[in-house]
């Protein structure tokens, strides 16, 4: 099972309500997966700065004074905003590698990196995870969420979705990949960092690897149809928008809705019923083996561009 939701806003006046709308959609999908929940939200970028979301199981000790250590490592001021087990680091642009090294030494996990992306995910029900991070209060341009019924790996924070792929990119998955062990070995040989035994992380790493080798996101998604074996409906978030792709068999459900105000994705229609204007929205199922993409950017960059 697993439940996926996604919301891409066209109407800027809805941006302050993104967290509230996306959280409600995700809670509706709770009975598709009670193990862990997560949300990726794109809240807009700040010039000259970038962000990292980090996580620790003992946040009080791990995050105390962290900004001092990281400021020293970056050579420029770093600020920190702690939210439960997660913290958002506001860091100087270009210092991601240095900060990551310092965090690795401290044993603090990186959930996401990018100019706009923040990822919050934990073990538990969507309503509890949402409350823990005050997700309803978040604003943004677009976001995706996931509630997990674990099949391929343990129920842990790091096994929760979304998975960060490249900068400002993330992936959620409904399904299971059957060739993830061999693909993980191959990608590790190629130097790709893969942390867990989770199948979806391999899917995310695969997309990262493809894009590092010059593929656009759309090309990477298209080639995933050949190289990934198993069942999947993927929703991929980027700085400018989100993309959807289903495997050719398309067992895993997907429903989309579009109005002048938004494009929404849900594993089931139930997730969409409280969106404004849903009664008159265009509602359809994405076709199998077809890459769909929506972007805020009319001229997306090579990595942001789909097909």
């Amino acid at each position: 099972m697993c439940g996926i939701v996604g919301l891409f806003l066209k109407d800027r006046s809805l941006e302050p309500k993104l967290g509230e709308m996306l959280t409600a959609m995700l809670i509706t999908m709770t009975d598709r997966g009670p193990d862990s929940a997560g949300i990726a939200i794109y809240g807009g970028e700040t010039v000259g700065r970038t962000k990292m979301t980090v996580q620790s199981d003992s946040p009080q000790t791990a995050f105390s004074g962290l900004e001092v250590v990281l400021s020293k490592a970056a050579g420029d001021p770093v600020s920190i905003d702690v939210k439960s087990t997660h913290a958002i680091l506001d860091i100087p642009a270009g210092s991601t590698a240095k900060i990551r090294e310092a965090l690795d030494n401290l044993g603090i996990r990186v959930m996401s990196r990018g100019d706009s992306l923040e990822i919050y995910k934990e073990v538990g029900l969507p309503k509890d995870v949402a409350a823990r991070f005050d997700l309803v209060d978040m604003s943004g341009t677009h976001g995706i969420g996931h509630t997990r019924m674990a099949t391929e790996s343990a129920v842990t924070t790091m096994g929760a979705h979304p998975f960060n792929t490249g900068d400002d990119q993330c992936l959620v998955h409904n399904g299971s990949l059957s060739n993830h062990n061999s693909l993980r070995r191959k990608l590790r040989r190629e130097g790709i960092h893969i942390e867990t035994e989770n199948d979806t992380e391999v899917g995310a790493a695969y997309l990262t690897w493809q894009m590092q080798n010059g593929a656009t996101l759309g090309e990477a998604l298209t080639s995933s149809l050949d190289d990934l074996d198993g069942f999947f409906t993927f929703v991929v978030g980027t700085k400018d928008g989100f993309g959807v792709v289903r495997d050719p068999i398309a067992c895993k459900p997907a429903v989309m809705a579009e109005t002048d105000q938004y494009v929404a994705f849900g594993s089931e229609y139930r997730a969409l019923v409280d969106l404004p204007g849903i009664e008159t929205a265009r509602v359809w199922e994405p076709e199998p083996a077809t890459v769909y993409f929506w972007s805020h950017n009319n001229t997306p960059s090579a990595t942001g561009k789909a097909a």
Partner: protein
Amino acid sequence: MQTIDLSETGLRAMNKMLHEQSGTTNQTAWEIVNPKGAHAIACGLDAPIEVTVKGSTGYYCAGMNQQATVNIHGSAGPGTGENIMSGKIVIEGDASQYLGATGHGGMIVVKGNASSRCGISMKGVNIVVQGNIGHMSAFMGQSGNLVVCGDAGDALGDSCYEARFFVRGTVKSLGADCEKKEMREEHLTLLQGLLDEAGIDADPSEFTRYGSARTLYNFDVDNAGAY
């Protein structure tokens, strides 16, 4: 007309109310409002009643239906009409995957499109789709009729037995052991009857019939590679 607000009554209580109707009930017209994509709406009915759902439904609406007519004024989720035995289901919008799977009898009408695996393992149900159908439709179909006024996706009728398929538009590809067949007078008459019953205005002569080539019925060592 009995109206049930699903958001107030709840699914179990609503289905119980419908299950309590018998062949002699005088409450034959029911309306369900606020379905909001809920699962298993009007599942397991067994009475000559007419239920109209005002909105879109989730998984397994009208599954195992007997005698009843279920109208869905919206789109229907996966597995709608699964194992239908008799009666009729009319979907005004689109239908999701595996519509009418394993259905033994009765009729399902879709005014929009049906998704993948429509009529998978059908065993006697008649399905009439005004739009298109997705891939792997009528896989292992054993009997009954699947009528498609639009186009069919990949692998239509793969490994089918004696189910008949009538498609007006194009077929992206035929499944293993499914072939194009001659449209004889008896098929035109049959198809006209199905279209009339479904309330769809289309000319039977524009359709092509497909069915089993019957080469997979018995084991043939030359087919070993296909298993």
